[in-house]
């Protein structure tokens, strides 16, 4: 929770967006409080980027949306004093020199701390005289992160920030973000397909599918709510009676995922643990049609809540 009472950083109500006949956002409600790190997870075309574009004032939308108390579409340039975003690794202009990029951001951004950016860059192999086009993808990501981290912003939006980076850069990216940037007065939203890599930095999790929210819970709640049970074949029928939301088999054993079934109830049938976000994602999105209809708390109408 936030240290002090504030209005939510992001408040969206019935956010809608259609492209022709394609519905990108079908009435999304979203509230993000200060100091949270929200993972916005969904399959391709789920509406993640559309939602982020609306939040960043890059595209018009229908419905209500306030970011830091502002209407992003009408006040993008003011909003961007307090909001940073990294769209993906490829958006820094290739023709620009590293020193130009630092100069430019220092020139236009009132909250940019040049010394801080240079200190970050000094820890990398990036040279000020290099053209961005000559840097590796990983270095461009480092540069962008250095620029963004030197801005004293309240909201950071990351849209697939590590796409195409190798494992080391990806890990370093999130480590740096968490250790050198994040504090309780900042808020981060991240979308990524590499769910397992952000699992341990998130405080909140939202699954999107077909423009709708299919899961919205904090990570604390996540651990209390979802269980994964590894069952031997002879116990399977009994375990199934408890109403798993998903079942998969591997190496001769079945893995069942439960929503809202207590660990004590499951323990007699096998090994109980917390599922990974990735496994839950497959469970939830894979069965999305049934799941989405029952809203964000599907356990309720499955009669399986402990």
């Amino acid at each position, binding site marked *: 929770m936030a240290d002090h009472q504030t209005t939510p950083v992001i408040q969206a109500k019935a956010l809608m967006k259609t492209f022709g006949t394609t519905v990108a956002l079908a009435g999304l409600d979203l509230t993000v409080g200060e100091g949270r790190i929200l993972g916005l997870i969904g399959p391709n075309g789920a509406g993640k980027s559309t939602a982020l574009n609306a939040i960043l004032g890059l595209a018009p939308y229908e419905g209500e949306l306030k970011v830091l108390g502002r209407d992003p579409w009408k006040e993008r340039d003011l909003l961007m004093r307090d909001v940073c975003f990294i*769209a993906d690794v490829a958006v820094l202009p290739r023709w620009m020199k590293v020193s130009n990029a630092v*100069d430019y951001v220092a020139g236009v951004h009132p909250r940019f701390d040049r010394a801080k950016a240079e200190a970050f860059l*000094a820890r*990398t192999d990036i040279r000020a005289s290099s053209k961005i086009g000559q840097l590796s993808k990983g270095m461009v990501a480092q540069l962008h992160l250095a620029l963004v981290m030197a801005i004293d912003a309240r909201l950071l939006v990351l849209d697939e920030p590590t796409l195409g980076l190798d494992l080391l850069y990806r890990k370093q990216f999130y480590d740096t973000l968490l250790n050198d940037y994040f504090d309780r007065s900042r808020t981060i939203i991240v979308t990524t397909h590499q769910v397992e890599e952000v699992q341990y930095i998130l405080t909140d999790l939202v699954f999107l599918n077909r423009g709708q929210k299919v899961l919205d819970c904090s990570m604390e709640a996540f651990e209390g709510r979802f269980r994964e049970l590894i069952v031997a074949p002879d116990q399977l029928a009994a375990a199934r009676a408890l109403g798993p939301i998903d079942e998969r088999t591997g190496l001769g054993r079945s893995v069942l995922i439960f929503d809202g079934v207590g660990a004590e109830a499951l323990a007699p049938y096998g090994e109980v643990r917390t599922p990974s976000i990735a496994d839950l994602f497959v469970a939830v999105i894979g069965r999305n049609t049934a799941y989405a209809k029952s809203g964000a708390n599907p356990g309720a109408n499955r009669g399986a809540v402990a």
Partner: protein
Amino acid sequence: MSMSLDTPAPAPATLRATRPFYWSVRRELWESRSIYLAPMVVAGILLVGFLIALGHSGGGSMHWTSGDQNQTGVVGHAEVESGHHNRTVSPAFLAALPFEIMAGAVAITGVIVGLFYCLGALFNERRDRSILFWKSLPVSNRVSVLAKAAVPMLVIPAVVFVVVTVAQFATMLIGLIGLTLHSQDPTILWRVLPFGEGSLVLIYGLVALSLWYAPVYAWFLLVSAWSKNMTFLWAVAPPLVLALFERVAISTSYVGGLIKYRITGAAAAAFRPSQGSHLELANIDLAGFLATPGLWLGLIAAALMLAAVVWLRRRREPI
């Protein structure tokens, strides 16, 4: 590895309103170096041409050009103007040749560079997706677009003026050396060259050209903001096709006339016809220029198109 970025004073907590504009213009110059390189290169080539011409007319003691009979049109023009075809350096030749040719050629280069700059100004940032980076910073679309419009309308004319002035000084130096080498009185240059006057005429001409071409630049920016490919074709083909259609369908040529007027009408609108070989202050027709409806209609069209460019930049996504 350590960084050695040149560090000016840290950014103040609040920025002056003009700072985003200033840095947006600088960013355009970083991206499109041809804005200042092309006028410099053209001026440099002309200077070399003048040197060669001087050597040519100066005769045997200067060997830069021996054997090179295929001179540029510059020399032919000079010879016609000066009426000299011998081995002395004529002051008239020196006076008539470099100033106006230099100014004209560099100004035309500026217009061409400005038009090509405009075609890329909003297209390239969408194509390389860097628009997402620009839009992540607190710079409004209006400031970004005005900075881009300022490049052909303010920056390039200023570059042209500086380049032409420097080149004219260099030309004069060449002339001085030439005259001295040929034991002629170099002070004659002061009498025949309209230095201060020429600069004023140049400034007036550049401002007039900028205002006259404003709708053309704005149209090219509009195409750049809108088109998804082949910007040049989209900029040029529709007006031409429209003119052709009009000609074929109703046998009139209003569109064609309008295009021709816009492209070639600047000089006639801004200057009185010149009697002599070059334009003087007396040729400036400011009142006439300001009374030209085409000027104001063009500026209104330019403003409307720039508003459309701002509207488009707000909505267009990376290609």
